[in-house]
């Protein structure tokens, strides 16, 4: 793979690294888009997921809505919103948020929902209010699932955030499209490698937080077989 070494050389070239169009600036933009889109989706999806998981009402809605939202083609949503709203990062951020929401919603919901009914009943029996049950029992025990949901959302958004450049934004997609349009394949490949590298770092962070939350869960729950459930 000759392209691969050329791509690595492109990344290593100091001329490509700094400045407003450099790798570092684009990397920061990419990260920012991912954070805003996933964060916005999380603000909306987590409360809904918890509400449904706790009350048990509308679980059919979660399954239906997450299924339908997963089926939404990001390219189509992006073009539609862009045609209606014009250029700028508004359209891509909404499209990326739509992409992130189902995984987060499912994670929040299934985490709460998967808590053993006996554990919840026990919490109620010792006099916890519904809020306390949610805050002290269901949310902590459901954390691994929520993190799992956030994790796949971040990964998907990060890979798809290259499309922001399609409608006038920044991010690593700028290198990707410029490389594609000018047949500069090393640059295109370099952009892909950077996206993957960013994702690897994020996955590492998530892996650590999953292990921490699993350890906490094990400490909290008295029945050890709950781990991994």
């Amino acid at each position, binding site marked *: 793979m000759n392209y691969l070494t050329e791509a690595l050389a492109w990344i290593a070239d100091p001329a490509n690294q700094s400045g407003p169009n450099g790798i570092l600036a684009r990397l920061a933009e990419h990260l920012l888009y991912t954070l805003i889109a996933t964060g916005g989706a999380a603000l909306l999806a987590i409360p809904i997921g918890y509400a449904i998981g706790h009350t048990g009402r509308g679980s059919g809605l979660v399954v239906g809505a997450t299924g339908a939202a*997963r089926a939404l083609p990001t390219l189509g949503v992006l073009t539609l919103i862009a045609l*209606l709203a014009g250029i700028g990062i508004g359209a891509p951020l909404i499209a990326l948020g739509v992409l992130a929401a189902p995984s987060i919603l499912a994670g929040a919901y299934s985490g709460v929902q998967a808590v053993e009914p006996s554990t919840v009943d026990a919490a109620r029996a010792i006099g916890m209010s519904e809020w306390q049950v949610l805050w002290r029992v269901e949310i902590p025990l459901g954390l691994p699932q929520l993190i799992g949901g956030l994790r796949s959302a971040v990964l998907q958004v990060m890979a798809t955030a290259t499309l922001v450049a399609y409608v006038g934004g920044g991010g690593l997609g700028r290198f990707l499209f410029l490389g594609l349009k000018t047949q500069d394949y090393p640059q295109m490949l370099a952009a892909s490698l950077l996206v993957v590298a960013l994702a690897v770092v994020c996955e590492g962070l998530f892996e650590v937080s999953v292990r921490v939350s699993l350890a906490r869960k094990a400490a909290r729950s008295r029945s050890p077989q709950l781990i991994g459930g």
Partner: protein
Amino acid sequence: MNWLTNNLPAIWTALMAHLALSLPPIAASFLISLPLGWAAQRYRWLRFPLVTGLSLIYAIPSLPLLIVLPLILGTTVRSPVNVVVALTFYGIALMVRSVADALDAVPRDAVTSATAMGYSPLRQFFAVELPLAGPGLLAGLRVVAVSTMALVTVSAVLGVHSLGALFTDGFQRGIIAEVVTGIVGTVALALLVDRALVAIGWVSMPWLRVRSAQSETGGSA
């Protein structure tokens, strides 16, 4: 709505091409993920590389993957094989974790009893673990199916025909009805396939019917 009535045959062609492009990777990623997920669940040291490592495939932006793959496979960029292989990769990225998790959820008692009864590992897998992991596998497969149906559209950017062609064409001509048709068509087709999978699960896992009937009558109002 002019566009819709003027282009019905083109829409039908796109729908069919979309199906033909998305069903093979859904099936392939399921079949390939089964042994991988089994290995990840069986051997702890394999779990991290297989589950987390393969899930990183999802981080590869699809557009460059579709351009780089032909160089490796020796196919042309527009070859459906190229798209099918790329989508299979993405499907595996999602499915291996589901398989491992679904096997995790199989009650250890059942597995231990099977071992005690002298089941061979292979028989134990097919007669005990696989059926008991069924619901989890089905849930994972449904996610893969729906995501794949949505992801197929990206290949339109490279000129492979699917409902995604309605996005690129509608974007250029500024015809919103065309883009909306593409979105609605993709979602409808995905939900149709999803329903079909649920139906297959219903037929192939009769014991689930009993359980869901119980939970329906036993559920609190």
